[in-house]
């Protein structure tokens, strides 16, 4: 296994980066984060239709491009770098991967094309208030009904939960505990008994919602497959993809800080000529590059179905959380008072970093998981 990019992968990255530079500059980010919907449907159509990113890791027979997590992570790095307001993480990373890893083949054939085409926006609702990221903590009940299943319960921190019109919900059969009885359920956006409420978030470039489901009709997916292992694979891949987005954001913060340090004059010289700033930036670079290496290695491992994938996912997320928060805090610091103003862009990436650092589990959680998996492998 190697994890240097091929020329083709670098070309792919270049295409995504150029597209986002042209179509989703920071002015567009600011417009979308203040908008009702939180993202621009035209941009989303471009991401799906022109670039085909919404199907990058989907097999060709399901309408995708047939690439792997490595390519998905390249896209994620660029989305993180550009801080793109789009439901890519919710729909492509979470919902699409969930269908790939958990749903039956027929369900995939039925549900994936609309997501891949960008015609529908999916999301995954598994975590509930309090924020235990494991599926086993799920309390949402799935009760059999005459015409399928009824769901009852709450979901929280649902990424793009208002923008999504294809909801995948994790629920459990009555009386089940732990990993037993868990399943993935499809809920229509207009289903009776579904109440969605937007949550106020510190990162307004990525929306979240709370869901309340009351006797809400739903359809079980992947009844023929093992939910637990599929969900674990999904979470590993989503975690790596999130970490990729985070290191992309960290690179953007670092680049902005370096650029500013070269331009900003104090005491008759650019502040980057002071060791206090220069050495801080050197350490930021090191930390960001280490996290990037961890993310890329994890993505390559996942594509190779390496037995260490779960451990490497925790590795990537823990390092990406620390590196991106460090980059965010220090980028504001290097910008000084200007960096604390609303008009300066640094805070947009700072807020994403702050939020992503805890999304899917914070660094301490993933460090503990890393050691637990190390022990389990011994």
């Amino acid at each position, binding site marked *: 296994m190697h994890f240097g990019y091929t020329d083709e992968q670098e070309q792919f990255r270049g295409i995504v980066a150029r597209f986002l530079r042209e179509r989703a500059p920071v002015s567009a980010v600011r417009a979308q984060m203040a908008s009702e919907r939180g993202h621009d449907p035209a941009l989303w159509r471009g991401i799906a239709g022109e670039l085909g990113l919404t199907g990058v890791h989907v097999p060709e027979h399901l309408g995708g491009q047939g690439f792997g997590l490595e390519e998905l992570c390249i896209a994620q790095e660029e989305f993180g770098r550009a801080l793109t307001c789009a439901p890519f993480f919710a729909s492509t990373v979470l919902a699409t991967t969930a269908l790939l890893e958990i749903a039956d083949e027929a369900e995939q054939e039925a549900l994936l094309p609309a997501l891949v085409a960008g015609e529908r926006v999916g999301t995954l609702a598994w*975590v509930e208030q*309090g*924020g235990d*990221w494991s599926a086993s903590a799920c309390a949402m009940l799935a009760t059999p009904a005459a015409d399928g299943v009824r769901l009852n319960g709450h979901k*929280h*921190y649902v990424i793009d939960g208002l923008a999504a019109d294809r909801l995948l919900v994790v629920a459990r059969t009555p009386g089940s505990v732990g990993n037993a009885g868990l399943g993935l359920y499809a809920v229509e956006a207009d289903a009776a008994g579904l109440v969605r409420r937007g*949550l*106020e*978030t*510190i*990162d307004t470039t990525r929306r*979240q919602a*709370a869901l309340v489901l009351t006797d809400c009709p739903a359809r079980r997916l992947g009844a023929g497959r093992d939910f637990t292992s599929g969900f674990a694979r999904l979470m590993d891949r989503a975690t790596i993809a999130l970490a990729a987005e985070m290191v992309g954001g960290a690179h953007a913060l670092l680049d902005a800080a370096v650029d500013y340090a070269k*331009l*900003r*004059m*104090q*005491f*008759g*010289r650019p502040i980057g000529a*002071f060791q*206090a*700033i220069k050495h801080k930036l050197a350490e930021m670079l090191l930390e960001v590059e280490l996290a990037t290496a961890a993310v890329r290695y994890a993505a390559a491992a996942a594509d190779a179905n390496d037995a260490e994938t779960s451990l490497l996912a925790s590795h990537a997320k823990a390092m990406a959380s620390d590196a991106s928060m460090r980059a965010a*805090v220090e980028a*504001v*610091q290097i910008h*000084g*008072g*200007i*960096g*604390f*103003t*609303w*008009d*300066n862009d*640094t*805070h947009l990436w*700072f*807020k994403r970093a*702050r*939020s992503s*650092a*805890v*999304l899917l589990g*914070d660094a*301490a959680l993933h*460090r*503990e998981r890393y050691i637990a998996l190390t022990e389990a492998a011994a």
Partner: protein
Amino acid sequence: MSTPSITPEETTVRAELRAWLAAHWQVDRSLVAWRHLLVDSGWGMPHWPREWHGRGLPVALLPAIDAEFEAVGAVGVARIGIRLLAAATLLEHGSDDHKRRFLRRILSGEDTWCQLFSEPGSGSDLAGGTTRAEFDGTRWVVNGQKLWTTSAHHAHWGLLLARTDWDAPKHQGLSFFVIDMHQPGVEVRPLKQMNGYASFNEVFFTDAVVPANNQVANTGDGWKVAMTTLAHERRNADALRRWGHASPHAGRIYDEERAEIATVMEPYRWYPQRAGRVDLALPRARSTGRMADPAVRQELAKLLMLSRASEWLAQRARHAKQSGKPEGPEGSLGKLVASHVARAAAEVHALISGADAMLAGADSPENGMIAEILLSVPATSIAGGTDEIQRNIIGERVLDLPREPRTDAGPFRDIPRNPPRPRG
């Protein structure tokens, strides 16, 4: 440590003041009228000189005097905001004319002030400002921009540091002025911060005018005067803590004082959050059940220890000062340690809050307080001197380490500097 015993002077002064208060203090007076009485009597600023609204009493008597005011619930002169920085600066560097025109209305609360030092191009390098004041034969004409100006939108007067000589070395080309903020050439705009608040302002000067008699000290002495203002800034933070809380009493004069405090304190509303709210960490670790996580316990212990030790450091500094000993390094360390505490607190709050750390407002822990902490904390290590500047100060002034080579000597005109910020 022995408690200082009560001096005969204290007894006399207390008796005199008690009598004066008994004769004059009335709850249903207007706040301004009462304060004019205080100014006339000298009891408002009893440690100020007799010729300038004071009684020339030693500073050591102030606690006793405050106690007498408190005993009857009497309101004091206006003490919060930038005004006492202005008063201290004018007392030290102003002409008699300045003192006559400005001091009384500072103490009465009728005038509010702001400080116009920082600029977009000169933050850490405060002496590198490029706002210019040019004398046209009768008055000074000011052009440029200032930043981080608290309460500029309320202020009647501003303490202005402006460049009057571009050929002098940078610290010697500055002069100091009192500028009327209510004039067409002065535009004040709120400056929104990353935490959503707009506690500061940008101030733009376009041919704004300062009459010749509003210049403080001589042309070229501006930096020296500004240093006086800055030296009082820390005391001002103490004043905010001490006098920034409204009295709970009923009555006209209290109502008026409450309104004044509410206005002045508005920009400082999020300051406790920028300091990280260490006080919330332990209760939240308990109430969320996160106290059971050993990783949380380690980080929480580090935070609590750091925070308490920093208080003890401050106490040691105060104790040394009170004992008349030379102040140790503790004083200079306070600002830097506050940054460490704030950053650590934000990390601990995020660790405790977990997924909830993503949320804000009413959906989030402590009704948005945690989110506010997470988004306000970067201010601590920047405002009032960045951590980097503090480490320089500690290294050079406390540890007596050699200075770096200068790259900003010679005529200011020739020093590389930032281009002007476009006016958006």
